[in-house]
């Protein structure tokens, strides 16, 4: 919208200029100004990125100094107490665990979807089916949260009880107080949410598979699966890895859906079927309202940790993509 208005006003300016008679300038000044504006917005973007790091650190430090416990190893999150005691051990564990589980569930399915749309679906329907998968990404996380809190957790309650009854001997599925608002439910919802990003990037990679590789495999009499195994998957491997990492980055930072679904409980527990658990992002959303000044600082500190983790994950993924592009 605004871009139209922006351009419209520039167009008006130009017409006035034209009507006013012979051009007074060659446009050199305009050129310089415009180039400056364009470069300026690029630099501003960089500045914002730097500012995010700077301001988070600045506002986190006082709270960290007031902290009585070791920020990295303490499991308790009690920054509003006097003296404040808080650490991100439990939150980081929940974040990594739920995202990892989501990734394990989502990646094979996402690659399957990408294969389906690129190679299996009827050609005429493929674009429409791809759009359908992209719709999953258009649903806001708050709606997934609402769905998870008021509908899906009852389904997962049954699933959890089943897994606990028959596979309880596996430590992951063990423990009691099995419930629907568990780390597993959160992971499943995260998996649904990162499906579209992983599958759409994977699809893009599959598009770049050289046609000659595919045709060579076909000419040797390969079946469709053999074509995929011989030509498509080896070519797309690094692309799929970075797609999965981008999905991981998204899962690590997802806040609202997790905050709504998980029933908060303290303490690190390996039992993913049990009600409760917490993640860095969900904890920020849930405890912000009651936070004192130190509490806010503590939340900002935890946000900083999340920022650094997602930054590393995303940068690695992008570097893998960039390196692959050079070879392609």
């Amino acid at each position, binding site marked *: *919208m*605004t*871009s*139209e208005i*922006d351009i419209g006003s520039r167009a008006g300016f*130009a017409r006035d200029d034209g009507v006013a008679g012979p051009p007074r300038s*060659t446009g050199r000044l*305009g*050129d310089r100004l415009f*180039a400056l504006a*364009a*470069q300026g*917005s*690029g630099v*501003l*973007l960089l500045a*914002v*990125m730097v500012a*995010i790091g700077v301001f*988070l650190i600045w*506002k986190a430090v006082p709270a960290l100094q007031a902290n009585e416990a070791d920020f990295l190893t303490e499991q308790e999150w009690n920054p509003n107490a006097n003296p404040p005691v808080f650490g991100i051990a439990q939150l980081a564990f929940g974040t990594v665990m739920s995202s990892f589980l989501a990734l394990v569930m989502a990646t094979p399915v996402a690659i*399957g*979807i990408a294969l*389906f*749309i690129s190679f*299996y679906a009827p*050609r005429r329907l493929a*674009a429409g089916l*791809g*759009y359908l*998968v992209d*719709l999953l990404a*258009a649903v*806001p996380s*708050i*709606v997934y*949260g609402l769905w998870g809190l*008021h*509908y899906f957790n009852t389904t997962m309650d049954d699933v959890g009880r089943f897994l606990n009854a028959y596979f309880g001997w596996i430590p992951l599925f063990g423990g009691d107080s099995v419930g629907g608002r568990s780390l597993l439910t959160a992971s499943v919802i995260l998996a*649904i949410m990162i499906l579209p990003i992983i*599958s759409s990037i994977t699809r893009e990679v599959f598009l770049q598979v050289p*046609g000659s590789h595919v045709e060579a495999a*076909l000419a040797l*009499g390969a*079946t*469709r699966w053999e074509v995929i195994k011989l030509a498509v998957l080896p070519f797309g491997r690094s692309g799929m890895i970075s797609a999965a990492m981008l999905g991981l*980055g998204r899962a690590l*930072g997802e*806040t*609202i859906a997790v905050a*709504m679904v998980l029933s908060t409980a303290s303490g690190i527990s390996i039992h993913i079927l049990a009600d409760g658990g917490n993640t860095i*992002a969900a904890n*920020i*959303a849930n405890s*912000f309202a009651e936070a004192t000044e130190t509490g*806010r600082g503590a939340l*900002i500190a935890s946000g900083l940790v999340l*920022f650094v983790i997602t930054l590393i994950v*995303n940068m690695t993924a*992008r570097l893998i993509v960039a390196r692959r592009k050079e070879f392609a």
Partner: protein
Amino acid sequence: MSVMTGERGEAPTGGGTLPEISFRRRAADKVVQALVYAAFVLAIVPLVSVLWMVIGRGLERLDPTFLTHSMNGLSSGDEGGGANHAIVGTLEQVGLTSAMAVPLGVLTAVYLVEYGRGRRLAKVITFVVDVMTGIPSIVAGLFVLAFWLLALGFDYSGFAGSLALAILMLPTVVRATEEMLLLVPGDLREAAYALGVPRWRTVCFVVLPTALPGIVTGVMLAVARVMGETAPLLLLIFITDAINANPFSGPQGSLPTFIWYQAGDPNPQAVERAWAAALTLILIIMLLNLGARLLSRLRKPVSR
């Protein structure tokens, strides 16, 4: 997306004269095919379930009262009430967000495509834009909290929320615009230069108008994405039950935070309102999405 409807990936046609494919290879092929189909179905199930629940439960309360009334003076257990204050807030915040992110994003893309080719700064910016798409929304919220509210001392407002949303929207706009600008044929630029048109005018009156439909599509998709963002708004716009039309002062409502508070309420009346608000939000987002798709289908950059 329509690009991928190439002839690649066509099933190998088993010619009649060729020897039979062994059972094992055929079985493996069929098993993988079944798995791949299953993966697709597996992704569609939650989509259908979410939409089914939102439409079914949302329609129970989505009426004119819901759209035209706020929650002012009502407690969460009361019947009636609505999300008007939240709708007003969301529209204003997203409008402000676009007003900031779109010019900045378009100009950045212009720099990357028209000015920065091959320069080091452009490469850094491209990389940072990529990384920026991965910033968790809650971190953008915390940044604006630390910067705008804590460091500069401003109060909660809709505008603070828009600042965070703008950070989230910016990379999407840059990406979309960049892609569209790259599609504009170089001939057009050269023709303009040959006529003695200065570079900035070439960009403003030749390149941008050619790419405009694509840019608008990208912007609409970006708007649809930030509209559903909840986490930063929870930290920045505070909470109110009354209509506040001024995004620059005082707490404001928004559809996502409205859903958050109503869904967490134990009263069934509040939960009903949450579903209706979710339906409203999804309807707005789907309209934007559909509009964007239609627009991109109607007018693609013409190459002659």
